[in-house]
């Protein structure tokens, strides 16, 4: 029988572990935003070499499952002589993976601006740098916000995979909890509820941003 007390008791330890879920996904998206901006700049640059690099970056990171990327990083770092905490390695991997998706989000937002916007600025003699900072970027950033929130939701879910390299986030904590209580159904359902709560909040923020951007 489904034990409601076990279900409710699971929330305590799992909520503590949720800090790490939020940490991995939050830092992951922050890192992804920075690297994604650089990759996007490469993708839009005049240099063929940089464009080629960006294309390979995006295609590799979107083609390889995150779980494989995590294990690859986990086994690669000691071989090349880098020793950093597992949490840092996980955040970096998640951030690099997110950068591929984020650079595509930004490229899409910039591409969606009507070309007449920049033409009108060019016609009054605005310099290219000014056109970027005053006309293109402010609009592209606002347009991309809902997609970025969506990406963050994907990262919260994807962060469940860092349990496989030993990070004590919600999923790993629920595995431990299930092993000690022998009540996997209740514990895993509680974990699902925590993820759902986080993501429903984020989705709400996303809808609010979308609404604001539309006004």
């Amino acid at each position, binding site marked *: 029988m489904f034990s409601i007390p076990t279900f409710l008791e699971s929330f305590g330890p799992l909520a503590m572990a949720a800090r790490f879920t939020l940490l991995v996904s939050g830092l992951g998206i922050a890192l992804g935003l920075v690297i994604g901006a650089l990759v996007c700049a490469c993708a839009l640059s005049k240099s063929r070499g940089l464009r080629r690099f960006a294309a390979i970056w995006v295609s590799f990171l979107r083609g390889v499952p995150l779980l494989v990327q995590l294990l690859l990083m986990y086994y690669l770092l000691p071989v090349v002589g880098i020793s950093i905490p597992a949490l840092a390695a996980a955040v970096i991997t998640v951030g690099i993976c997110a950068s591929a998706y984020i650079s595509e989000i930004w490229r899409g937002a910039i591409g969606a601006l009507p070309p007449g916007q920049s033409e009108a600025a060019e*016609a009054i003699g605005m*310099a290219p740098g000014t056109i970027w900072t005053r*006309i293109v970027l402010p609009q592209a950033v606002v347009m991309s916000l809902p997609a970025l929130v969506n990406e963050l939701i994907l990262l919260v879910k994807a962060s469940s995979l860092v349990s496989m390299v030993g990070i004590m986030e919600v999923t790993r904590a629920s595995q431990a909890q299930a092993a000690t209580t022998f009540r996997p159904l209740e514990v895993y359902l509680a974990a699902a509820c925590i993820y759902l709560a986080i993501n429903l909040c984020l989705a709400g923020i996303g809808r609010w941003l979308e609404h604001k951007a539309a006004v």
Partner: protein
Amino acid sequence: MVQASSVEIRKVNKFYGPFQALTDIDLSIPPGKVTCLIGPSGSGKSTLLRCINFLEEYDSGEVLIDGQMIGYDAPGKKMSGRKLREMRRGIGMVFQQFNLWPHMTAQENVAEGLIRVRGLPKAEAASRAAEALRKVGLADRMANHPARLSGGQQQRVAIARAIAMEPKLMLFDEPTSALDPELVGEVLTVMKTLASEGMTMVVVTHEMGFAAHVADQVAFMEAGELVAVDAPSRILHQPEDARIQSFLRTYHERNAF
């Protein structure tokens, strides 16, 4: 009177791959006069207009603004971006799709160029923007974003954005084609005022009434060639060329009730 530029177009050619969009265009646009470019769609009128401020790069020939070639230092040698921007400051342009910047209010749209290109302090730019908007009859719409303005109002903001830069030449690329019929008049009125102040204007248009009453000369283009340039009455009422006759016949049939 505003200071007005002249434009000299000589043997201009433009290719898109193998397709020739402009063939040996010669056209001289006198200062302070209104020149209308008419012709069927796809005839190259917009392309020619966009060559005048080098938004479209012509491949050979010359476009001279007050005697200075735009886009090239010498044939085949591109001008620096800085120099090109310098020249563009003297040329205002109004687009078919308005191209207002949706994240700025009407006043900010007009002030943006004054601040970022002319380097005016913000307060002065704001007051000049307000003045330009008053001139196009939008003093009460300054704080609105483009999405809260009608098409005619948006196009008048776009005109204000151009004239605030104090250009000596104005280019209009089908400024009323994207407007509902009842909104065309307000935009044409503003353009007429500008013409009466002695601005050099080049207007690509399908408004034959505007061409007939406001233009000093009308140029008819077809298939990338300039067929004729003459006084509006000669082109619109007694055209000699069969191509113009057929274009006007279609135009009148479409507009007959």
